[in-house]
Every structure is written in C-alpha cells, then in structure tokens.
C-alpha cells in the first residue's frame, strides 16, 4: 500500500477523479446547455464573432466575482464586500489609467489594491477570529467609502484603446477567462492551493496534519480581492469611465452564482467549474429574460424564484430518497 503512485498511475487516476467531481454539477451543466440553446435560438447572432465577444463580455465580470466568492466559500468564509471592492477597482482604474501612471501602472495599482484589501480582510477574519459576515459587512462600508473618496461622482476615463481591446469586437474577455481558469488549476497544484479544500472541509484535522490552514485562508481572501478589483477594472473598461457604486449588484449575484454552482456554505464542498457554470447560468438567465421582453422588475421576481428553485429542488430530491 505504501508504494507511491507512479506517474502513469497518477495520470490514470486523474480523469476518473475529475469525472467524479462532476457528478454534483451534471444537472447544472444540462440546464446551462438548455439556456444556451434557448439563447442561441432567440439571438442567432451568438455564433458570429462579435455576438460571441459581446456575450462573453457580459458574462466575464460575473464569472470573476463568482470565482472570488467561490474561493472564499471553499475555505468556509464568505464576503459581503465583493460589490464594494468591484466599485473600488473600477474607480481606481478610471482615475489612474489616464494619469501619469498609464495603463500598466493603473493595472498594477488595481491589482495591489485588491490583494491588499483581501489580505487585510483575511488577516482580520482569520487571525483576530471575527465572524467573516460581519467583518466584510463593515468592510463594505470602508471600501465603498474609499471608492466615494477617490471619485465622488461617476467620471474619470479609461483609454479608448483599452476599452476597444477588452470590450470591443475581440474575444479578449474569453481568452482572459481561459487564462484565469488555467492559473486557478496551477494554483490548486501549489501547497497553498492544495490546502484550500482541506482548510475548508476540516480545519482542525487539516491543522493537525500540518496543513497551513491560516495561510491558505488568508491567501484565499487575497485572491478573492484581486479577482474582485479585476472585475472592477473590466467594468470600467466596458463603460469607459468609473462609477463609485457600479459594483453594488455583484455581492448578491456572486453568492447566487456560487450557490447555483453547488458550492456549500460550510467550506470544502463544490468545484470552481460549478461556480463558473452557475455564473454562466445567471448571466444567460438575465440575457434570455431581456430578449423575452421581461421588464427589469419582472426579472427580479423571476430571478428570486429561479434561485430558490435551483437550490431547493436537488435538496428536496435528496430528502425524499
């Protein structure tokens, strides 16, 4: 039993394990496919280059915040400050990029802010042992306030070429998403990434086995902050300017997407592909309702019902069995 797995055996194990991790989200993938077909029928332009570009662009920020929320929920945390962090990212992008720092400097500023905010939040939650819900609630005020200080009213500017590159007729958003997913896979192979699931599922057991639980959780908060401000940068590029409250809706939607994707609240349950599928479903739902001529108000009602339904039905089936 003690013989270590050879490389070929390891590779042979990899795919069955990946398949098994898909079990919980298979029905979700089916629903996403149905919505995708419905969307394709309603809007045949989806399969042209520009239609595809536009669609992935409307999905991209939601996918990022869903990942930001999912990585926290996997470690047993949660953030109610995602929306405020997105706003802050957008505001920083819109104020720095047109200035002396330029686009590269702006990107660095956005990334550092996200990492810094996330790491600080993680430190407060993990090391000072305060409940994550309340810390991030209070944090949302601080971060939102900072966004208001930087840019009291919508304004600022993002260079036109960057807007064209990210939100024009290019598949840049999709390429970026693929890149981020690849980076996520890489991260899962690092020691901190490996600790992520262990720290969420059974922190005490993981700690006793020598897993850096605190480090993994703080790193998760930092990455979550980076993804959130990144989403803000993209939103700023989409609109061409900054808005201190533009991210407000993302807090709710990020939780909804992660939960639709089968991520559990207790930590250690769920997969990132589930969260991405959840965000795609949410994004498709909003687009399909738009094309069916739902008023924004009716969209709220339908969204509330669909989220409850999507979460309740699998649970209900489990109870009946």
């Amino acid at each position: 039993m003690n013989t270590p797995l050879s490389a070929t055996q390891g590779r042979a194990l990899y795919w069955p394990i990946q398949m098994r991790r898909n079990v919980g989200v298979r029905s979700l993938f089916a629903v996403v496919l149905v919505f995708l077909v419905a969307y394709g029928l309603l809007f045949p332009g989806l399969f042209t280059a520009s239609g595809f570009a536009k669609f992935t662009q409307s999905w991209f920020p939601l996918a990022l915040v869903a990942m930001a929320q999912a990585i926290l929920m996997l470690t047993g945390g949660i953030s109610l400050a995602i929306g405020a962090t997105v706003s802050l990212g957008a505001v920083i992008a819109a104020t720095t990029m047109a200035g002396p720092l330029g686009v590269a400097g702006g990107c660095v500023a956005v990334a550092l802010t996200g990492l810094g905010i996330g790491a600080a939040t993680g430190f407060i939650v993990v090391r000072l042992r305060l409940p994550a819900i309340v810390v991030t609630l209070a944090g949302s005020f601080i971060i939102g306030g900072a966004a208001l200080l930087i840019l009291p009213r919508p304004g600022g500017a993002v260079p036109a070429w960057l807007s064209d590159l990210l939100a024009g007729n290019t598949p840049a958003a999709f390429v970026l998403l693929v890149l981020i997913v690849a980076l996520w896979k890489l991260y899962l192979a690092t020691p901190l990434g490996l600790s992520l699931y262990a720290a969420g599922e059974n922190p005490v057991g993981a700690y006793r086995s020598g897993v850096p639980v605190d480090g993994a959780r703080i790193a998760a908060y930092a990455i979550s902050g980076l993804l959130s401000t990144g989403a803000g940068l993209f939103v700023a590029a989409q609109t061409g300017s900054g808005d201190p409250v533009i991210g407000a809706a993302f807090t709710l939607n990020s939780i909804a997407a992660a939960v639709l994707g089968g991520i559990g609240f207790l930590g250690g349950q769920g997969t990132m592909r589930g969260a991405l599928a959840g965000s795609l479903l949410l994004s498709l739902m909003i687009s399909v309702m738009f094309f069916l001529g739902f008023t924004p108000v009716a969209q709220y009602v339908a969204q509330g019902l669909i989220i409850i339904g999507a979460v309740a039905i699998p649970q209900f089936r489990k109870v009946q069995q």
Partner: protein
Amino acid sequence: MTAWKESAGGERALTILRSRPFLTVAIVAAVWIVASFVSRGFGAYGHLRYLVELGAVIGLVAAGQTFVVIAGGIDLSVAAIVTVSAVSLPLLSWQADPTGITAILAVLVLTTAIGLVNGLGVALLRVHPMIMTLAMATFLQGLLIIIAGGSAVTAENPLVHWLGNARPVGIPAGVLLWVAVSVIVLTMMHATSFGARIFAMGANPLAASLSGVPVASTTLAVYGISGSCSGLAGVLVLGMNGQGYVGIGDPYLLASIAAVVLGGTSILGGLGTYAGTIPGAILLVTITALITVVNASPGWRSILFGSLILGLLLLSGREQARR
C-alpha cells in the same frame, strides 16, 4: 459566613460585569459621556430621546434578527420586509375603519406570512437561510416596484401617525412600543420552553432534534417572528417618516445584524441575548449621530462608520474558539 456571602455576591457582580450586554451598555455610556463633553447639545435630554427613538426601529428589526441568529440562521430579507410593510400599509388604509388598526393588523399578518415562507424554505426545502432570505429579498424588491411604482405613498392612518409622533408621558410612543416588545422578547427567549429550544437548536441542531425539539416548526416560528418584527418596524418607520417608498427599509439590514453582533450574540448561533441587542441598537444610532456631527463627506462618513463597527467588534464581538 459573611466572607462566603461576600465572595458569592462578588462573583455574581463579576459575571454581570464581564457579560457582553453589560460591556455594550458601558460602551454606550462612555460614548455618550465623552460626546456630550466634546459636542454641545449632544447630551441634552431631547437629543438623547431622539437617538433612542431612532434606535427603536433598529431595535425592533433586530429583535427578530436576534431570534433567527440564536437559532443558527440569518435573515437577509428584513430590509425588504420593512419596505413591504411601509409601502403596503398606505395602500391598505380604507375608510371603513377610523382607528386604522385593521390595516396595521393586516400588514403584520402579511409580513408574518412572508417570514413563514422564509421558514418553510429553510425548514422543509432545506435551502440555506442566507440564500432563502436573499432570494426572498430579491423577489420582494421586484414585487414592490410592481405594486408601488417608484413614487412615495403617504400614510393617512391615524394610529400609524400617533405611533410615529405622539409622546404620552413625555416618552415617544415608538420607544414605548420598543419597551413592550423588548419585555415580550426577553420573556420568550429566557423564560419559556420555546426560548430554550431556540438556544438548543442554534448550538447543535442534530442534538436538539434527537432530544425531541421540533426543529421544523421552531424554525418556522423563528422566521415568522422575524417577519412580524420587521413588519412592526416598518409601521413605526412609516409613522415617523409620514411617507413610504421603495428603499425605505434598506439601512436596517446591516444595522440589524450589526446590532445583534455588537450585543454579543454569536453569529454562529446558540449563544446570546436580546438584552445585548438593545444597547447594540442604541450604540449604532449613536455612532451614526456622531459621524453626522463630524460633518464629513459621504465617503469619509462611510469609512468612519465601517471602521468604528470593526473596532467595536474587536472589543466585543470576537468568536471564542469552540472546542
């Protein structure tokens, strides 16, 4: 013997001194004393009475929230329910009833029913409370705009007006209502078997259900209580404001959770008391009032509010390592 008695009395005094509710009361007192020295007029009776009156709304919402949190859940739909109450009450005010009490009762039944639906989702469909109540809030938000549109509606209900403006024996009616609700809530929580079941359920739902606690019906009751408390808060805020509009309840979601946690109730459930939430609510209004006195820009105001809550949490809200 006297020495023994003294030490027992001393121990009791020490437990009270060390308890979370007392700590929160002490913080409020300290803030009030310091603020009244720094800012003229802060310590005036009229101003403090006004603060408590504002705290009453938060206190009412937080009463239901305390029940839910102690039972191991969380209710993120309280803001939407407050709005539902404040917006639908003016629409219900018909002429047949001159006192306006039927309209209030009808609204309370409605909000309790909303709370019960939350409870049904959590208890029977096993949806996580955060998702159930968030989805309910989203649903209600849409429904409200359909019902009320974007405009403000004026209440012409005499009882609501009385509740928001009258001052029998010099104390605002809203504060009297809060006192009455507090007495009922504290009795329910600490002197009935229902209260004991809630604590048991929040500490360990499995153990509670194995020891014969009817978990499903208790969960339903808890969310129902939260719905009716938020409904009552909506009636009060409508009375104080005169008008109801979509979004009137929004500030009370964060405020209710912050009041509960600042009062020493564990967000993980099973531990806490409404006796802490009461000073927690007053503390929140005091912070808001102080920040208004400072006269800063909205950005700084928001940063100050968040930092102060975070700082206070460090003083009183730390989770004990449980094992």
